[in-house]
């Protein structure tokens, strides 16, 4: 029951927000309600997770039922989603003051979190697919919120890549429905060798199609093209959740497919695994490279997302418990860190209007605290101990070495390392230039605009702070998370 509430309360609230047109005049009520719903959602999700259980939503046909069920992976993602949403939401109440069509933004923002909760709690592949499609469609207005030509173009790109990916995945769903009938998520998979006798090749193809298809949302090569276009044009809070959370929807979908439907056994050692690994590593490397060369701040973060989510995918592709733990941890860490980065970017944009890296010199004079939190997050993402990124990367690397995948298992850590260096290369300059603008920097512009010492508004600064500190703390005390991830890994592998 609680999970139904967790799914439908925000959706209904979002619809209400969209439908009630006089809310516009009462900004206070609007933002108040908005924050309240987000908070309630976080609470509901946590309560639902604690309650557990399953529920059937609807019998579509005799063979297709839609249902929700709470399990560990879903819980992890749901909690993560709702918390991130809450923090980014708080940030947005301040950020969106400077934007048009606030109400629409809030409406869709609420709907998306409900849909994501549904996605995380889905009990079977088809339900998940339903929510997956809904997520694409309802998050679209967030992407093209600005309504500039660029934004619309980006929105369409986002839509078509996502839909293309979804239909690739749909092929797999159709195939699996055809061979096994039952698509309930079961740890370790439901596909047995005798089901697919004679169709092994097709099964592998279907799985690969699903990985690539769902990988679209996670920005995996070759369908990553939308991400650097779409994330930066959205308003910053939306970029934060798009990058931090919605990309993880692709991740959970792949987890569900590989570990809960097909089963790791079926693809271990096949071409699918290797292809997947290669794709993930390629993405990792390529994303970092592109981020390194990118001059626009939000785009740089977006490329970083491309690279970082593929860390997760690489971990999953190893089909190995340690790597799996690393992947799950990295899901959480990256979520937190990337949210922090994008929210920081939003704060900078609102305060200064600067978008390009070279403009950010002397940022430390304007918002030293915010920049400090940024530094924390950046260090965590690079993987400097004891910040969080280090933990996950450690697990990923050891898992990779232990996975028994031959040369790729060794190449993997190398690439992770190179990528970490690149990460440092593209994140640290902002911090360095911010605090140490150099001798020749006179800070003329900052003084003229009277920006000196103007930290972001509290509604922005607090979430950034929480996230920045969390990215450090999670690294210092990773124990519970790792234990949890381990239990999941034991279940599925």
């Amino acid at each position: 029951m609680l999970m139904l509430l967790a799914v439908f309360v925000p959706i209904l609230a979002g619809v209400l927000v969209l439908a009630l047109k006089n809310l516009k005049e009462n900004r206070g009520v609007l933002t108040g309600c908005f924050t309240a719903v987000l908070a309630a959602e976080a609470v509901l999700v946590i309560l639902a997770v604690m309650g557990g259980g399953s529920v059937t939503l609807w019998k579509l046909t005799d063979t297709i039922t839609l249902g929700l069920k709470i399990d560990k992976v879903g819980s992890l993602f749901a909690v993560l989603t709702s918390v991130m949403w809450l923090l980014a939401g708080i940030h947005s109440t301040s950020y969106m003051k400077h934007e048009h069509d606030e109400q629409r933004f809030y409406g869709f923002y609420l709907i998306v979190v409900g849909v994501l909760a549904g996605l995380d709690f889905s009990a079977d592949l088809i339900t998940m697919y339903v929510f997956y499609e809904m997520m694409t469609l309802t998050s679209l207005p967030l992407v093209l919120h600005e309504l500039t030509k660029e934004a619309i173009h980006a929105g369409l790109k986002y839509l078509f890549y996502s839909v293309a990916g979804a239909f690739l995945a749909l092929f797999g769903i159709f195939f699996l429905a055809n061979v096994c009938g039952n698509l309930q998520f079961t740890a370790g998979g439901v596909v047995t060798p005798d089901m697919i006798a004679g169709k092994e090749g097709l099964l592998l193809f279907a799985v690969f199609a699903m990985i690539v298809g769902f990988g679209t949302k996670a920005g995996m090569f070759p369908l990553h093209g939308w991400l650097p276009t779409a994330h930066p044009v959205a308003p910053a809070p939306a970029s934060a959740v798009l990058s931090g959370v919605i990309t993880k929807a692709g991740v959970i979908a792949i987890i569900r497919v590989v570990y809960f439907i097909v089963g790791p056994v079926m693809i271990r050692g096949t071409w699918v695994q290797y292809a997947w690994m290669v794709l993930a590593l390629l993405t990792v490397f390529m994303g970092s490279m592109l981020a390194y060369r990118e001059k626009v701040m939000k785009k740089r973060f977006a490329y970083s997302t491309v690279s970082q989510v593929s860390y997760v995918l690489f971990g999953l592709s190893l089909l190995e418990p340690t790597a799996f733990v690393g992947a799950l941890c990295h899901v959480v860490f990256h979520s937190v860190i990337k949210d922090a980065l994008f929210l920081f970017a939003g704060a900078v944009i609102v305060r200064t209007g600067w978008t390009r890296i070279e403009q950010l010199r002397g940022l430390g004079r304007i918002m030293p605290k915010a920049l400090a939190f940024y530094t924390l997050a950046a260090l965590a993402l690079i993987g400097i101990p004891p910040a969080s990124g280090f933990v996950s990367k450690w697990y990923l690397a050891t898992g990779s070495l232990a996975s028994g995948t031959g040369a790729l298992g060794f190449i993997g850590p190398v690439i992770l390392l190179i990528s970490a260096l690149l990460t440092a290369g593209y994140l640290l300059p902002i911090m360095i230039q911010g605090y140490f603008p150099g001798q020749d920097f006179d800070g003329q512009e900052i003084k003229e605009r009277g920006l000196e010492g103007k930290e972001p508004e509290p509604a922005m600064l607090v979430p950034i702070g929480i996230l920045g500190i969390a990215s450090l703390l999670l690294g210092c005390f990773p124990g519970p998370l790792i234990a949890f991830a381990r239990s999941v890994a034991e279940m599925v592998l």
Partner: protein
Amino acid sequence: MYDSLMTAVVLLPIIFGFLLLIFNNPIRSGHHERTMEIVTECLVLVNSLMVAALIISTGGRSGNLVLFRLYGQLTVMFKLDLMGSVFAGLVSFLWPLATLYSFEYMKNESRRPMFFAFYTMTYGVTLGVALAGNLITMYLFYEMLTFVTLPLVLYPMTREAARASRQYLYYSIGGAAFAFIGLVFVLSYSAIGTTEFVAGGMLNPELAGQHKNLLLLVYVLAFFGFGVKAAIFPFHDWLPKASVAPTPVTALLHAVAVVKSGAFAVLRFTYFIYGTSFLRGTWAQWAAMTAALVTITFGSTMAVKEIHLKRRLAYSTVSNLSYILFGASIMTPLGLIGALTHLVAHAFMKICAFFCAGAIMHQTEKTYIHQLDGLGRKMPVTFTCFLMSGLSLMGIPLFAGFISKWNLIQAALSWGGDAVAAGIPGGFIPYVGVGVILYSALMTGIYMLTVAIRAFFPAVGAALSSGSAVSAGAVSSSGSTVSAGAVSSSGNAASAGAAQSSGTSVRTEGEEREASDPSWLMLVPLVIFVIMIFVIGLHPEPLLKILEMIGGEAG
């Protein structure tokens, strides 16, 4: 009693149409058009109720009703069976709504009696196709369909319309001419001496076995022949051209009645004449299937390229019709079920989309997609419905389109698996088909959603300025919510928006009047169609039960 009802539902609209033609001048000179419309609507409604009564009372199965003997064993005969019931029921559900819609649409047109005369006649003829008990009767009504719909295509009387109608005619007649070959062959190889439809086929197995390749060739000829009306590549070209016709025609006839008659005829020919056991696994099956797949790919790609809204939808119809043909060419009970599901689902989706396009044209006289920027805020209900039908066409779950796609693909995968397992050459084609359908779904997403996005999210500075922002919130509400609730709220929003913008908005060039949602005559059908899309999408079980019965019989 029921026999006479069958005759009545076919003849009543035809006779009524003739009467309208005869009294054309009195109606127009006496300005009795309103009366005529009411009478027409009542008649169509009564006819639909009669169809309903017929289907319910007979349970979808009636006896043979021989009307007259054409020549030799060729009798004109009606017989209601389940598949015919599905088609007849579909048509009779849509017709009153479409008629209602066309009153508003045709409001400012002259020559309305003529339009409604042929429109109503087409109803009867389409029911004739549905109720036909044997091939010759179906062929008869199939040909008649060409001729009664021709004036409707020609209706705008422009050069373009004349060209389109000529092409329509040539293609249809040509197709029928090749279908005729099939007819003659069936007559010669029939096991029962007549051309009556028999679930599972009626060819004389011994005789047919001797000339298997010849018969397969004939099947392919007839498949393409009947397929012309279902716009199969390379005989699809008439359909996009025919979209010059008034929208009610394009919507009802060129998305449902006429083209579905073609698909229906193919289904009849495949499952009730040849029988799938004869065709399955032969080159003829692969030929038919390949043609359908090429059409799907081609149609959806062309739809993306097309910038004229109605023609885009027409290309979409081209590709979607071939979904049905693809289902037909799978030649298993599941394939038939899939084809019929899509036949029903696509009818609602496409008529809804076309009616939206018609509403847009009617309210704003805009026909090209790039002109639609921001219209979604002015015509929220219309564009919501358009979005819904677009999503359904894409095959998003919870919409009707998903169900049909699901059934089709399951059928394709099952048969593909069997064919590969049995080592039949060409067994991979159904798998290719799955890929093609998914590709087409992606293209559908592109060509349908770009329109909706343009309408709801105009690029800044593209179309509207201040006025639009006022109603934006309310507008986008209808962009995402289930229709029924949105109608009232966004209706208000639109009026509020219109009131606001009348003072402040800067009108774009050539915009004669402020656009708004059309009157209830247009909206009611639209909303009903959207509801039907959801009903089928969410609760398809009753429909599927019936279709499974058909599949069980005909497989």
